[in-house]
């Protein structure tokens, strides 16, 4: 999996490309955390438009980032969530701490 990100003020837009599993999530979380720390990120928008596969390791990875930003009242946004991923997010109760939007620009309007 590859990760592409851009920072807009205190907001980080993270786009995953490929498959998110236990093996892959180990490396991306370090990469995201260093940006959260160095750029003083408050809100994170995760873009799933190019994710081919995700299992519950992705839930752990998202919740871990939520814990990094919740102290500064930061929020997590999930965009371009399709079929199976939506099921996994619903089953795991992720929508109680993260909000779903259709597109990155819709999420950026409300951050």
């Amino acid at each position: 999996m590859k990760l592409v990100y851009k920072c807009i003020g205190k907001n980080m837009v993270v786009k995953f490309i490929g498959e998110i599993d236990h093996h892959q999530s180990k490396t991306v979380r370090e990469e995201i955390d260093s940006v959260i720390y160095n750029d003083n990120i408050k809100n994170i928008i995760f873009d799933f438009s190019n994710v081919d596969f995700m299992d519950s390791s992705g839930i752990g990875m998202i919740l871990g980032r939520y814990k990094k930003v919740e102290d500064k009242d930061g929020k997590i946004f999930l965009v371009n969530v399709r079929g199976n991923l939506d099921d996994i997010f619903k089953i795991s109760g992720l929508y109680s701490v993260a909000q779903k939007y259709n597109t990155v620009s819709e999420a950026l309007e409300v951050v």
Partner: protein
Amino acid sequence: MDNINFDNYMHLEFLNKSENESFARATVGAFVAQLDPTVSAITEIKTAVSEAVTNAVIYAYESKIDYIYISCGIVGRDVYINVEDKGIGIPDIEQALEPAYTTKPESERAGMGFTIMQSFMDELTVESKTGVGTIVKMMKSIEE
């Protein structure tokens, strides 16, 4: 696997390396493809296999290198998948099946693996004995 006369059957064994999580789910997905399932059904099976294999990679052998075994049988439209390890076992299966239960929260485990397997498959049973190992047995019927 249980005594069923399968129309087709395959067996995999591989080391408990996290690199093999994608190998395992892709291989089972490719085997099941002969039933011409929907993309959604294939994704559900791959996700369930990924959850079971990831559990075995993370919890079964602690830091030891050892084997994980997958058996997959097809009878009619039913797919049977067993994911087995010969690791430390699960002392309390009922507790392990509870949503959000994990013994490794520090590794960012959400504890949702079994819940997702139960949601995506039609049947799930877990057999485990401390010091002997664990078998996760799953079944899913593929719609015509």
